[in-house]
């Protein structure tokens, strides 16, 4: 099957052609949402950050926002700021231009003279971007230019039996075809890190696996708490997962059996093709945003308990680990891996189905999360608000 997408001037390829209204600061959220309302089809990103960050935390927030602004799935970005914040709209716009986003405009609320004028001017920009975007046609693109983000959330005991091994099959196939797959969720690799380390491309990557795991575990140990309750969550436990080790051993299957090429920090772009691990928390939205900010154009998200979440700019394909959840949350589920549990389908059969679905979605088929307008967004903070 041919892969059809949008070729960007900087050599990247997109599978969507969004006009993004990006708030850089919590104070600009209402205006960004107001512009989106005026221009149906555009998509806004709002969040609670953008001011009073320091050091690496500031850099991470900035890097994440720029990752969205210059994402290959985004045709144009309208950056909306207040005017006095630390994460300046102009700075985000400039970094996005440098990263290859050719279509950027900026609205500063204080400069425009308030909410209504900012919305009116912003809507004008968005209208023009929508018109331009609608004239860009899909062309044939290569799998080598695609980054697949893998994720599991609301896991149950079936995650490690059905959906995650199928996603691993799909991820391995991606890698064989020259593409890239990101595995994430550092906390959800506690107890399974040795399996990943054994597949490291070299000694540096192998050491890095343990460094990143130990760094995250030390944070928890320093807090003097038992991880249980947060990891696994109450829903995970109700679904039969007893410990974080058990959850991790099911989780790691998402990465298939490919060689681990590199370990990258949150919201950074992979520099290698093949299987890459990004250091993110287990929090579904924060990790999803980190991988998308790192350039992932498509996401496959497995779930045992069922979750509705999506991304403002990347299609998110939901895979149910069991038939009950697939049927119970049919509004949100795209693929059922539950037939593996009943012995009616193999991991490879579901993996093939999943791969085909992924290609169709990249070619334009809408996911349930897209149809229903799920645009969840959250940045992983690594410092205090000052």
């Amino acid at each position, binding site marked *: 099957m041919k892969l059809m997408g949008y070729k960007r001037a900087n050599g990247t390829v997109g599978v969507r052609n969004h006009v993004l209204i990006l708030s850089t600061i919590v104070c600009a959220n209402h205006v960004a949402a107001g512009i989106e309302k005026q221009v149906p089809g555009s998509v806004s990103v709002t969040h609670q950050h953008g001011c009073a960050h320091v050091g690496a935390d500031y850099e991470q927030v900035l890097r994440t926002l720029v990752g969205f602004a210059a994402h290959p799935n985004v045709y144009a970005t309208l950056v909306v700021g207040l005017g006095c914040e630390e994460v300046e709209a102009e700075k985000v716009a400039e970094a996005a231009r440098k990263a290859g986003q050719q279509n950027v405009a900026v609205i500063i609320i204080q400069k425009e003279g308030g909410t209504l004028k900012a919305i009116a001017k912003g809507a004008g920009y968005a209208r023009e971007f929508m018109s331009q975007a609608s004239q860009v046609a899909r062309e044939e693109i290569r799998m080598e230019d695609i980054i697949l983000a893998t994720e599991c959330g609301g896991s*149950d*005991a*079936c995650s*490690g*039996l059905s959906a995650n091994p199928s996603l691993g099959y799909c991820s391995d196939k991606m890698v064989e075809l020259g593409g890239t797959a990101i595995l994430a969720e550092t*906390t959800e690799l*506690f*107890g*399974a890190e040795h*399996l990943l380390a054994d597949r490291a491309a070299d000694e540096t990557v192998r050491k890095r696996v343990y460094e990143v795991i130990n760094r995250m*575990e030390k944070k*928890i*140990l*320093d*807090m*003097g*708490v*038992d*991880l*249980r309750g947060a*990891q696994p969550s109450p829903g995970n*436990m109700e*679904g*039969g997962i*007893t*410990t*974080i*080790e*058990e959850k991790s*051993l*099911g989780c790691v299957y998402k990465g298939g059996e490919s060689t681990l090429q590199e370990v990258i920090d949150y919201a950074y772009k992979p520099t290698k093709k093949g299987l890459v691990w990004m250091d993110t928390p287990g929090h579904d939205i924060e990790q999803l945003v980190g991988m998308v900010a790192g350039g992932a154009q498509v996401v496959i998200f497995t779930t*045992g308990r069922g979750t509705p979440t999506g991304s403002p700019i990347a299609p998110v394909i939901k895979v149910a680990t*069991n038939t*009950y959840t697939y049927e119970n949350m049919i509004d949100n589920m795209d693929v059922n891996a539950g037939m593996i*549990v*009943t*012995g009616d389908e193999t991991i490879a059969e579901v993996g093939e189905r999943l791969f085909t679905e992924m290609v169709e979605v990249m070619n334009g088929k809408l996911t349930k999360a897209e149809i229903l307008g799920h645009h969840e967004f959250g940045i992983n903070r690594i410092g205090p608000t000052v």
Partner: protein
Amino acid sequence: MLSYKAVMMSGRDNVATALEEIPAGGRVSVRKGEEQLGVEIKEHIPFGHKFAMEPIAAGTKVMKYGQVIGAASQDIEPGRHVHTHNVESLRGRGDKQ
């Protein structure tokens, strides 16, 4: 005799996962590597939950996927539910520092 569905992920495991809800007194026959093992279920096991396939002494490692998923916090008889009430996680235990 009717056997409820369950699976052992590896020949190194000492627990099995129920692939359907199993009532107390239910019989289960599970494949472990080359062997076929049978066990009588001692208490209700919800779908997706684990039960012991052999006696697991307190402090012993609980194995699933051929890997360690924690340690038994009390003696567990074959056929008993294996979950948070009788298994301790060995990772991220800031409370044990």
